[in-house]
């Protein structure tokens, strides 16, 4: 096999087909970017899930001072707080722990959680934060039992299930991930078709050469390899650009705009290691898809 020949044919082909290859590279880059985004989204869901695991708890918020809520005519009294606490303790063993958070602690937690949003901290009045009970359940699904036991007691503002929030968060993240993967699937199909067309155009424009090659007894490999490489090269460049795209997403969005949302995401976001971890997927899938698309096209259009 004379590689020099194959590569010179490849260079000629690329030169002749430059505009087509440009289109192929762009669509391949987009599909690989969607794929990478989907993969990273999946990693983020995993990270967030792990961070929230064990933190699934019920918060029973008590009436703060100056509330306009009709359920809270005044700040919860010590006696009311006592009543709520004993009502919760009665639910053992479903309730595994009950912790009282007073206003000081609430303020500390608030400052800690929103340390990346100083404006929010500055504009918040510490006395507006409600006192609460943080209740851990041995079975997080039986939130209703807690809710019905304390929701209507005097001094209770509202009972909030962190579980509901986490579920909602995950369903949002999952649907974003699915959207990215669907976009990836559609654009991969588009890229495959485009690669097929580009290879077909390349093969047709060089029909004279390939015709001679066939008749002087060049093997199929020799005839098809330059075209196959043309398709694979386009896919490969697309994957590299797609990786550049998700690196940009990591820098500008994950490490930029998403910073203030860090606590919501479980205090942790995807690392560069996760970003680099997508490389084998991007390269593997784009090379496989482009090779397959080129191969199938060549089988259909250049026969021995």
């Amino acid at each position: 096999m004379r590689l020099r020949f194959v590569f010179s044919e490849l260079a000629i082909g690329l030169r002749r087909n430059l505009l087509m290859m440009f289109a192929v590279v762009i669509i391949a880059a987009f599909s690989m970017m969607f794929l990478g985004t989907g993969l990273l989204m999946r990693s983020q869901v995993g990270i967030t899930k792990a961070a929230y695991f064990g933190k699934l708890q019920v918060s029973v918020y008590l009436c703060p001072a100056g509330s306009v809520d009709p359920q809270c005519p005044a700040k919860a009294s010590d006696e009311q707080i006592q009543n709520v606490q004993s009502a919760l303790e009665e639910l053992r063993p479903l309730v595994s722990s009950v912790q009282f958070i007073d206003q000081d602690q609430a303020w500390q937690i608030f400052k800690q959680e929103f340390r990346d949003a100083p404006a929010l901290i500055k504009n918040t009045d510490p006395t507006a934060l409600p006192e609460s009970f943080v209740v851990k359940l041995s079975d997080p699904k039986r939130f209703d039992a807690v809710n019905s036991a304390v929701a209507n007691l005097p001094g209770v503002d509202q009972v909030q299930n962190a579980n509901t929030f986490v579920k909602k968060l995950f369903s949002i993240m999952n649907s974003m991930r699915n959207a990215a993967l669907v976009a990836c699937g559609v654009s991969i199909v588009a890229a495959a078709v485009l690669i097929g067309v580009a290879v077909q155009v390349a093969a047709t424009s060089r029909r004279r050469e390939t015709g001679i090659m066939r008749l002087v007894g060049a093997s199929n490999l020799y005839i098809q390899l330059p075209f196959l490489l043309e398709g694979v090269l386009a896919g490969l460049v697309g994957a590299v650009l797609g990786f550049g795209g998700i690196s940009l997403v990591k820098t500008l969005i994950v490490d930029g705009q998403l910073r203030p949302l860090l606590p919501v995401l479980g205090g942790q976001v995807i690392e560069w290691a996760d970003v680099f971890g997508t490389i084998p997927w991007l390269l593997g899938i784009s090379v496989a898809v482009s090779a397959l698309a080129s191969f199938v096209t060549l089988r259909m259009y250049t026969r021995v």
Partner: protein
Amino acid sequence: MIRFDNVTKMYAQQARPALDDVSLEVEKGEFVFLVGASGSGKSTFLRLVLREERPTQGHVHVAGKDLAKLSSWKVPGLRRQLGTVWQDFRLLPNKTVSQNVAFALEVIGRSRHQIATVVPEVLDLVGLADKGGRLPGELSGGEQQRVAIARAFVNRPMVLLADEPTGNLDPSTSVGIMRLLDRINRTGTTVVMATHDAQIVDSMRRRVIELEGGKVVRDQSRGVYGYSS
């Protein structure tokens, strides 16, 4: 070298077969003219030998191999033993004469060293030793056909198939091409030439196979183009 056993070739959507129960044998080293009107089956004959087509019925043997049993990945190997020349030359316009001939060797993976030795030799044989650097567009028709013959012969095939090689050339140029094919034949290469050129066939006095409507109607050693009719 080439043997047809009861070969019939039907093309899809055509009621009449292109070749109809043809049996014949071409020995090693023979020079054979294939004559007949357009559509008589000459080109189909050549395409079957090249295994560009497969017979509908019967068997084609080339160089001792039954082409029906030849798996498709061995077809390139078969074609390396066959040289082909066409009426329209089929040269690559953006490659020089030398590069056109070298192309046939490059694509079958010959070494650069080998190509550098063989190409000038074969250009010398066809009488174009001093025109290796020219582009096909700068050459006359006869010279272009010599390049095509050089390309077909550079790999020393056992059989040279020529489909109307003089069809685009004037009579005096054609004589030169026929001398060249004759020389190649004398090196032991079997030559099968499809032609309409009565004058050439008559002057060469070689074996003539005449096809009519896909059937062999005449097979004459030292024949002429046609009975004076």
